[in-house]
């Protein structure tokens, strides 16, 4: 059985600086989002438990050929990549179509894993869209996944409760950060990563644009910034604000 993990290459958020309220991407390293790394780790654990083959799928610009080594070092067996330099800000609908088309080229896929949201946009749509395109059942926000033969038991964490769900494979699952602690690859794993098989797919990346970004700026802080010297004065202000009554 093949287990697929879809991962998104994003700018390292810690390295993004703001200049004139605009984000600056120059010299910012590319990496995978943290929750995508949890999805990969979940895939590695399931692969080890079931003796499956773990394939990482990603869509991004040319730098992805390098970034993908992170995932191959951390335990993926092979990679399927869709590369295009024009797709800097690909919309969820297009990424989902390309990921689904890539998965359709594989045989015997038992599970497709996603992080609950990408690190940069965090829209959380792609997993659901891929599940719909592939016509598969889905479980989002998983904090535990077990594969038992041809079915899976997944526990998911919602705001107010947990649900334990069961489904026959194949199934699409998105995970939350709580599910595991991603392993740090060893030096020998990093060295071997470059030799693992990588398939570059030629797919038509042009898709209908459904979204438009009008502006994207760091928020302006419109706060009063009143300095108070004593607790008494602070409480007086909070009374005036109507927040506390005494």
């Amino acid at each position: 059985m093949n287990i697929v993990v879809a991962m998104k290459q994003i700018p390292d958020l810690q390295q993004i600086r703001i200049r004139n309220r605009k984000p600056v991407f120059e010299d910012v390293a590319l990496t995978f989002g943290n929750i995508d790394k949890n999805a990969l780790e979940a895939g590695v654990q399931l692969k080890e438990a079931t003796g499956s083959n773990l394939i990482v799928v990603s869509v991004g610009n040319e730098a992805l050929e390098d970034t993908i080594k992170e995932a191959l070092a951390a335990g993926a067996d092979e990679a399927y990549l869709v590369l295009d330099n024009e797709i800097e800000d690909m919309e969820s609908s297009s990424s989902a179509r390309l990921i689904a088309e890539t998965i359709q080229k594989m045989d015997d896929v038992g599970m497709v894993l996603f992080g609950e949201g990408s690190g940069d946009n965090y829209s959380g749509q792609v997993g659901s869209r891929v599940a719909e395109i592939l016509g598969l059942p889905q479980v989002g926000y998983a904090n535990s996944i077990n594969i038992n033969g041809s079915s899976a038991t997944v526990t998911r964490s919602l705001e107010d409760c947990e649900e334990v769900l069961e489904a026959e494979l194949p199934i699409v699952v998105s995970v939350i950060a709580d599910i595991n602690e991603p392993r740090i690859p060893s030096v020998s794993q990093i060295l071997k990563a470059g030799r693992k098989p990588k398939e570059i797919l030629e797919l038509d990346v042009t898709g209908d644009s459904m979204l438009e970004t009008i502006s994207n700026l760091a928020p302006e802080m419109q706060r009063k910034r009143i300095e108070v010297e004593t607790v008494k004065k602070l409480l007086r202000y909070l009374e005036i604000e109507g927040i506390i009554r005494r």
Partner: protein
Amino acid sequence: MAGILIYSDKTKLALELLNAAKLIAKTAFTINSVSINNDEQAEELAAKGAQTYKIINPELNLADTAAMSSALLQAAEKLNANIVLLSSDRRGKELAGRLAQVFNAGCLTDVKGLETENGNIKCIRNVLGGATVAIQQIISDKKVIAISPKAFPAADDEAGGSINKCEVDIKPSGIKLIETREKAGDSADIEAAEILVVVGQGVENKDDLPTIMQIAKALGGEVACSKPVATDKKWFGEERIVGLSGKICKPELAIILGVSGQVQFNVGIRDARIIVSINNDEKAYMNQMADYVLAADLKEVLPELNKAIG
């Protein structure tokens, strides 16, 4: 005429969506709401003036996102809706992507504000992990918008609502719900709290926590914390983390104790109505995004504050 359809499995969020829909619908839109296997919710929505369509179908399971999106697609088509508003909680977000795909719609989630202009709906949402706030719009004819909890107040009572039935065909996708259980551990709901007292690394002594708990209690609020206080110091569970990797909160008042104010934290609290920063470090960045700043020794301030409000 274009129409808006609203749905959330949670009544409170559905009522917020109703208000969001009213903002969009100012002129040329009709608003319909759907309730699924929830008579009580249908009545509440109708009492707030919504034309409500009940879907009653025992085969339709909330946990089966494929079946749920198919049901909503059918409802949207029957009711001539080209805009569907969902709640951007976990269930709602999961549903949003799947419905958008089958509805052939552009989709935005975690929308924390809406502005309408010349018939365009501008959606405001955090991107780049909260470092920036984008204004985006969906340019496809069909739109799915998932709106963050508390972005809008809940709708008030209004006359003119109605309850009707809506029949849909359901094909379960094979997801079986085995068990629903309470979440283990800390059940604090810091997103729901109107007042938060937030513990940062500037609170150096764990012995100060009981005083901080008392302050929060006296104010009728909850205690929350920055990420390192939960993950490194382990003073609290992860349920109480404010910020990008925790909860995005929007309280009336946030009293921030000893937090330096990195963007990953700020994104979780910057929509609070009033922010108070109490910090030993008068240069803390947090002070720049506070309404009231008390630069003082926390060790002295905490007992004093507790005494004054206790």
